[in-house]
């Protein structure tokens, strides 16, 4: 039909600005990434990259720091996601009778989400400072001892706590919404059947919240995996590169060492892995949705 086709072209026109913008600011950089990753390039030869093959990838592959950073990112993402979701789930369910009646309580719990992670990281520099920080101060006063929180042995776990305390509210919020969305009839019917509170939670409520829990775990893992801001301002890459995430590794390879080829090759690897994982997840989610409907 003629009107139908006219319609489609009008719609296409409406989506065009966005598509052009994405091509310019993501498509073009992606191509630059690919070309530079197989070239011999430095800040002096930025405009005439010499294509040399896969030597940059080999350099990254043989770089211990790259594997150390990958391991850090994986562990950091997995541990923080699990901690945040476990804490958030407990708080959401346990506190929901309070929050239901007074929604301002949620506003207080959500507050950390509004503050820039970079600023929160800077704040912890004060909180944990050996002379000016209240945490060492009270530890000394009460226990006569303190930790070197950002030292080689404890830096990783300090960062885990910092990230978890800031982002647990996100999981809490998601789970609270999902918990409240459970139809009351379901809960009442099970209670009529004499289900105990604990069984109700385990067999009825948690399974109903399962999709939200998976989504929250995923989002928090991704954000933990690509962490930059708070780690960068707190410890940087840390003693011996022990707290360098992949984002920090790439940043430092480029800005501190000027190793453009290595930084770009690492970007391309991260790019490929991210897209492969996301594509797989989308396939999985699509099949699940299909099974449900």
């Amino acid at each position: 039909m003629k009107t139908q086709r006219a319609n489609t072209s009008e719609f296409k026109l409406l989506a065009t600005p966005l598509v052009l913008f994405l091509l310019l600011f993501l498509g073009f950089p992606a191509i630059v990434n690919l070309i530079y990753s197989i070239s011999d390039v430095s800040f002096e030869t930025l405009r005439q990259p010499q294509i040399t093959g896969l030597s940059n990838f080999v350099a990254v592959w043989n770089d211990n720091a790259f594997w150390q950073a990958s391991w850090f990112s994986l562990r950091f993402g997995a541990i923080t996601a699990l901690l945040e979701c476990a804490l958030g789930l407990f708080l959401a369910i346990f506190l929901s009778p309070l929050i239901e009646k007074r929604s301002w309580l949620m506003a207080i719990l959500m507050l950390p989400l509004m503050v820039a992670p970079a600023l929160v990281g800077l704040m912890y520099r004060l909180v944990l400072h050996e002379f000016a920080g209240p945490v060492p101060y009270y530890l000394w006063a009460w226990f006569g001892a303190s930790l070197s929180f950002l030292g080689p042995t404890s830096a990783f776990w300090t960062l885990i706590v910092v990230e978890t305390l800031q982002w647990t509210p996100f999981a809490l919020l998601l789970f609270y919404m999902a918990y409240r969305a459970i139809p009351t009839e379901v809960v009442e019917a099970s209670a009529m059947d004499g289900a105990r509170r604990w069984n109700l939670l385990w067999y009825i409520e948690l399974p109903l919240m399962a999709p939200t829990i998976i989504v929250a775990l995923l989002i928090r893992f991704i954000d933990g995996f690509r962490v930059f801001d708070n780690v960068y301002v707190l410890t940087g890459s840390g003693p011996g590169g022990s707290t360098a995430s992949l984002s920090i590794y790439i940043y430092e390879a480029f800005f501190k060492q000027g190793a453009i080829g290595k930084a770009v090759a690492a970007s391309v690897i991260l790019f490929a892995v991210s897209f492969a994982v996301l594509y797989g997840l989308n396939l999985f989610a699509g099949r699940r949705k299909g099974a449900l409907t």
Partner: protein
Amino acid sequence: MINVLRWLVFAIAAFAMNFPILVTLVTSFKSTRELSTNPGLWVQAPTLDNYLAVFQVSDRLNIFLYLFNSITVAFIGTTLAVMLAFPAAYAIARGKLGERTLLPFIVNLRAVPLIIFAIPLYMMFQWLALLDTRLGLGLILSIVNLPLALVILVNAIRDLPGELDEAALMDGASRLQILLRVIAPVCRPAIVTSLIFGFITSWNEFLFGLMLTTSKAVPITVGASFFFAASGGGVQWGVASAVMVVGALPPVLLGLIMYRQISGSMTAGAVKG
């Protein structure tokens, strides 16, 4: 009895999660002398000296510039994202265009570590002379804001009855006219929510601010860290705390005022995205 326990848990959780903010707020009111003797959680003699010092412009530090930069880049990044996303959202929701390509691609951008685009963007900005400009940083922030804005707007338009468009089509209106005159007014809450979200995200962004600006266009998140760079003897914790309070205040206030809208769409973006 169990309610007492709930209040206790709430108090502990709220205290622990807001602890760095609390400490910073308290410290910002301490005098330099008090700071050296009292790192505790109370203030003996509150003073505003630190705030006066923060707003003192020197050739090294200029908080007014950082705040102005943050406002400007957040404004560019937010409005541009919504202006690009809104017509596209309409095409996706009504024209079924790119539902399986464009939409998932942009939604997935939220999950991609943005550092992978940072280096080529840095080079590109060098060629285009966009390094250390507010426009340049604003353009990148709009990419950061696009995924959530698009999801919120697509969901909002999908929830509208199709009769709205059809009635206007009958009257011979073009799609663009329908978008601006019919859809935009009823989508106002969704547009406002995406603007608020974009503003908070842009204001709090750090990585691109750090990479793409050096002096003229430095946003407050990066500028705040300049106050930690010791000038002579060590960090001045009072002044550093005051600058963090100032830098955190705009998104926190916005979040406290609008937390109902924000909590609603944060979950929408997470669950449906």
